[in-house]
């Protein structure tokens, strides 16, 4: 069993030893809170893993200045589930229920920064679900984006859009 684990971790020079305090990776959040995680967790985070690889595993304390101690536990939780192969629809539904819009965005940025493909896909879907079929004004508020169109530009664009893509296939819009 231990061998199996260590073979999984062969990119970590430190992985020869049994999981112990020396094997854990310390992730330091932007507000200086240390989170100790198993190397397998770190492996899920490509950014962290490549940092470890570059230093031949000698450095096990990784500063993550862009990620707060509020968000990091969520990321770790997701990675743990992912390793355990327990990412189910139910888990994801529960996971996302805990998050408000702000947290979803922060986690998305964290997943992007840490380069965690699965989490990024998942959160992209969550964001997409939350802005799908919403008004543009809502989406702007959601993203915190200023409308920088002049009224003329926006009117022109809307006209182009209406002309080309909508208003002609009422069947497609009825569902909205």
């Amino acid at each position, binding site marked *: 069993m231990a061998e199996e684990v260590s073979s999984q971790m062969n990119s970590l020079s430190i992985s020869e030893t049994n999981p112990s305090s020396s094997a854990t990776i310390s992730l330091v959040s932007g507000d200086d809170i240390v989170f100790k995680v198993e190397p397998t967790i770190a492996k899920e985070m490509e950014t962290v893993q490549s940092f470890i690889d570059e230093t031949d595993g000698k450095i096990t304390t990784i500063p993550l200045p862009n990620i707060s101690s509020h968000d990091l536990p969520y990321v770790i939780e997701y990675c743990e589930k992912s390793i355990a192969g327990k990412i189910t629809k139910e888990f994801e539904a529960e996971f996302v229920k805990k998050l408000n819009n702000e947290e979803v965005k922060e986690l998305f940025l964290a997943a992007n920064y840490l380069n965690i493909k699965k989490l*990024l896909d998942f959160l992209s879907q969550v964001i997409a679900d939350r802005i799908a079929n919403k008004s543009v004004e809502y989406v702007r508020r959601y993203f*915190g984006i200023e409308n920088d169109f002049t009224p003329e*530009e926006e009117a022109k664009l809307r006209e182009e859009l209406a002309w080309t893509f909508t208003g002609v296939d009422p069947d497609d819009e009825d569902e909205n």
Partner: protein
Amino acid sequence: MEKDNITNDFVSNLPKEILGHIVSFLPNESSMETILISTKWRDLWNETIVRYGTKQDITNVLAKFLTSFDDFDPLKHPRKLQFHYDQDYALLATIANSTKLLLDFNFSPLKKECNENTQKHYELQFKLNEEKKISYNKCFSLKTLYLKSISYLTSEVASSIVSSLDHLESLVIVSCNGLKSLSIDFNFELHKLTILDCLELKWLHLKTSKLKSFQYRGSLPWILPEFHFNLSDAILDFRLGLSCGGIKSKDFDATLLTIKNSQALTLCRWTFEINEMP
């Protein structure tokens, strides 16, 4: 939960790929609307490929362009193509999704030239039936096609493109100045035909048995339907009057044939009443 009083823009600093990633998870019709968020998003959507060539290349360039588009990741490849051909002319192709395309034939930086072109009259013949199935471009799986500003110079190209679309369900023809005669011969699933503002159109020959929806705006042409339709809706707007003086009220019977069974009918100005006057 909706306090959202943040000042920093969540997405402005993210690379295009990441924004595209979110968009790729949106349902098709919804994804396109992100173009309205801000100028940055508009510019993402409006990235345009520019190509140069000759008129003969148009079909192939278009086919290639359509093939590279990915519905599931619509920002990955530009959805606009500007094709400059024969030196002075250009067309703009805009993809809404892989089954929906707009072709604007009068996209030219040299507007003067175009105005000259639109003076000349031309005919369009769209012909697609089982006996004569060209389909040299299998990738043309378009279901909805918008044709804008075709001129006598591009009428042949337009005809050959349309005549190769055996999945076409909806055809929209807009602002084709100089178009004098239009003949549509489709045995396939063409359900919807829309003709708007083709002001010089005098002859409209319809050989489309499956038509369900017909919309026309412009001056009343001679309409020659070869089938009795059972339209579900029709919108006829002849506020511009007659396309030529020779049309009598009895000639309007054919137009009536196209709409007689329509479930929903919208008419703007009942033209032949005026025509009855000497």
